């Protein structure tokens, strides 16, 4: 008993001292501006070559400037590079780095830092998860396979401020690729000095608007303004605290209590409640993502395009977007999301019709294919990975297929790892839920999902040599307008076959306090803290 009392009083004493100390800190603070940012989860890594998720990108884009970067509206702007030129054959990109570009420790940003970073990214020893994104660079694939040494990579420092990147073939979306968080530079000296530990606070040297100050896993990441940043005078917050608000319902309560200035993600089923309560602080904006159902085109009855079209037409996407997704989604009738610059998507007839018309067509098609009431029974199993939105979507779609097509629908869910492992290992299925978030804003990044040589994410096992040929042709077309036309034709061909049934485009979900300005909705869903200012 006595012992417990001692530890209790000790516990209270420690708490009290901590409380006083924190109180002193708060009162002692001057007009420093702190931006408290709910980030929906902890980063798995701060190493730009191991990163794979948006939570990491949000932090890395504050710490580092790539050659190019997105501005607050999601437009590509010069960042570490001041200017660039592209050779007439579209294969050689020459970047001029900013003369005043500096690392957070004062070292100048050199072209060799980029060379070092790209080589490390593609070195098989690094085992970078997103290495394949950079395969358009000359010899990148061979280097990543271990067939060539990293020095053979087509990235060269001409001098300290000039970087030359040579590509395998013209890649019209290459500049977009360079905005990805895996294309950020590394401070060569500190990576060589600290090895894997270069990401730790105190070791990490960055060239962006902020530098890393503290990282307490699952608690917070603190980044502070980098005085050496070329545009430091325009950076309006001194400190950004990233909180890993994984429990989004709890994060909403913290936001409402004023503990967070912005928060990424909230529970979709609370959208209406939140809109009533918080009004314009609730931000939903379409971004580069799609939810779709892959059909198994090698298996009857899904090998019949009429069946696939019937299934697609029978889905009331307005209901899905408005009711199932609570308005945080937009109906999708094709693969590419809206908001891709310079791209005119093909006309999809169904998009302009009423749901009743679509259902009539669906009934005709399924009858012609020989399925439904009075004919062969239409049995469908929908596989999805376990979460509330997927479950609600599958339940709604099953109901639509039952009532419109007379199908017998069963649902099967498994956790996300099992689900995707099953699809990627070519397990048998009828209909499988999948989602895709674009890595760069180009139609190619969505249409490649149907390429026959896409061994991992062509879940439908769709094979169409004409489609493959069109995409290949688009890669080889330097003229942007002509290329976009080819991609649009390819998408029209894809939707004519409809191996996958697009459902909705997801919206990004943010809570933004009225005190915050500079937090603009954009399809890239990129919000760099350097554009944020906070009213007292």
């Amino acid at each position: 008993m006595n012992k417990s009392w001692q530890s209790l009083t000790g516990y209270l004493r420690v708490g009290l001292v901590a409380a006083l100390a924190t109180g002193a800190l708060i009162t002692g603070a001057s007009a420093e501006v702190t931006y408290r940012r709910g980030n929906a989860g902890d980063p798995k890594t701060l190493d730009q070559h191991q990163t794979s998720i948006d939570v990491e990108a949000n932090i890395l884009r504050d710490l580092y400037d790539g050659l190019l970067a997105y501005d607050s509206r999601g437009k590509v702007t010069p960042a570490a590079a001041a200017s660039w030129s592209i050779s007439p054959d579209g294969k050689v990109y020459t970047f001029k780095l900013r003369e005043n570009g500096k690392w957070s420790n004062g070292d100048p940003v050199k072209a060799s830092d980029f060379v070092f970073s790209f080589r490390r990214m593609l070195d098989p020893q690094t085992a970078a998860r997103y290495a394949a994104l950079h395969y358009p660079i000359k010899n990148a694939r061979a280097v990543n396979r271990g067939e060539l040494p990293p020095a053979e990579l087509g990235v060269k420092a001409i001098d300290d401020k000039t970087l030359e990147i040579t590509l395998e073939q013209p890649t019209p979306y290459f500049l977009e690729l360079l905005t990805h968080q895996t294309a950020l530079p590394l401070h060569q000296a500190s990576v060589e000095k600290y090895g894997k530990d270069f990401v730790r606070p105190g070791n990490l040297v960055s060239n962006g608007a902020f530098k890393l100050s503290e990282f307490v896993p699952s608690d917070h990441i603190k980044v502070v303004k980098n005085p050496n940043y070329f545009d430091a005078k325009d950076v309006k917050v001194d400190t950004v605290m990233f909180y890993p608000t994984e429990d989004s319902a709890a994060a909403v309560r913290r936001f409402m209590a004023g503990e967070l200035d912005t928060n990424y993600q909230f529970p979709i089923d609370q959208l209406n409640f939140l809109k009533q309560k918080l009004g314009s602080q609730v931000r939903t904006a379409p971004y580069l993502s799609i939810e779709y159902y892959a059909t198994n085109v090698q298996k009857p009855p899904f090998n019949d395009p009429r069946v696939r079209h019937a299934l697609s037409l029978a889905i009331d996407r307005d209901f899905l977007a408005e009711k199932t997704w609570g308005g945080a989604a937009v109906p999708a009738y094709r693969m590419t999301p809206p908001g891709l610059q310079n791209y005119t998507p093909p006309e999809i007839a169904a998009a302009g019709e009423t749901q009743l018309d679509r259902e009539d067509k669906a009934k005709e098609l399924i009858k012609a294919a020989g399925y439904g009431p009075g004919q062969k029974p239409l049995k469908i199993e929908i596989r999805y990975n376990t979460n509330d939105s997927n479950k609600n979507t599958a339940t709604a779609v099953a109901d639509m297929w039952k009532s419109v097509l007379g199908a017998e629908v069963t649902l099967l869910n498994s956790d996300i790892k099992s689900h995707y492992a099953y699809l990627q290992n070519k397990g048998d299925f009828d209909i499988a839920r999948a989602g895709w978030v674009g890595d760069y804003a180009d139609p190619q990044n969505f249409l490649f999902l149907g390429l026959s040589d896409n061994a991992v994410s062509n879940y439908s096992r769709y094979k169409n040599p004409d489609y493959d040929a069109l995409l290949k042709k688009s890669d080889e077309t330097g003229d942007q307008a002509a290329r976009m036309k080819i991609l649009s034709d390819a998408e029209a061909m894809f939707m004519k076959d409809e191996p996958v049934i697009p459902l909705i485009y997801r919206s990004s979900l943010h809570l933004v306090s009225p005190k915050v300005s500079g937090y603009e909705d954009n399809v890239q869903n990129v919000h760099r803290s350097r554009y944020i200012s906070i009213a007292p």
Partner: protein
Amino acid sequence: MLIYTLRRLASAVPTLFIIVTVAFFLVRFAPGGPFDMEQPVAPQVLENLKRAYSLDQPLFYQYLDYLGKLVRGDLGPSYSALDFTVGEMLMRGLPYSISLGFGALILAVFGGVTAGVVAALHQNSASDYSVMTVATVGVTVPNFVVGPLLQLVFGLMLGLLPLGGWGGGDLSHRILPTIALALPQMAVIARLTRGAMIEALRADHIRTLRANGLSNSIIITHALRGALLPVISYLGPAAAALVTGSVVIEKIFAIPGVGAYFVDGALNRDYTLVMGTVVMLAGFVVVFNLIVDLLYAALDPRVRYE
């Protein structure tokens, strides 16, 4: 006593070995691996990754390798927190969970025992019924309800306490999660204490004390000593569960502890993190059960370890 302690600790080694072996192979049976994601990795990248983590080796070789490293105290790299090893993660997270868990344990024991004794002394009175009603509610209402309720009332409505985060260990940040963590345990302890206390008060030696006209406080002290035995045996596993963190409470209150490691590790197929958590949990259960047995000897003169 010392020999007994050492013998108990030595006998834990084969137990731990079996637990580690079963867990190692069980977690590998789960479909999918650490690198299966919605945005899949390219086949070449997958090969590089498997090589980097030695997952390209035969499973039995990986098992031997893991055992060898475990003996040297190396729990391996994490597959989901790429910048840290599992050992680093546990060392970082455990202090938060232990500190919160001990606070909750102390609160639960003091609150629960006091409430139980009060209820037992006034059996079938209004105070007994109210304590037992609260205790029943405490046991039945899950902590994913209690946590948000506390946040709503004390954080949002009254604005008295912060809703989440560790706040550098600030007491105000700990109050709500400690209460939410302690409540169900407190309720169980109150019920256990009440039952055992009622029984103890009817025991022969207590009746003798009463017959000798000893004061109420002395009688209670003597009865309590016997009544605490079932509470103590319950406390072993309960303490292990409390100090190794609660998934729900740590998520709701954004506490950077180890509570979520097991579930997150399993869902992410973070093999090494799951194994590390299993080793840690097993270790705590062994130690706390030992402490319980030693406390038994201290409280009950009939129990002796030679």
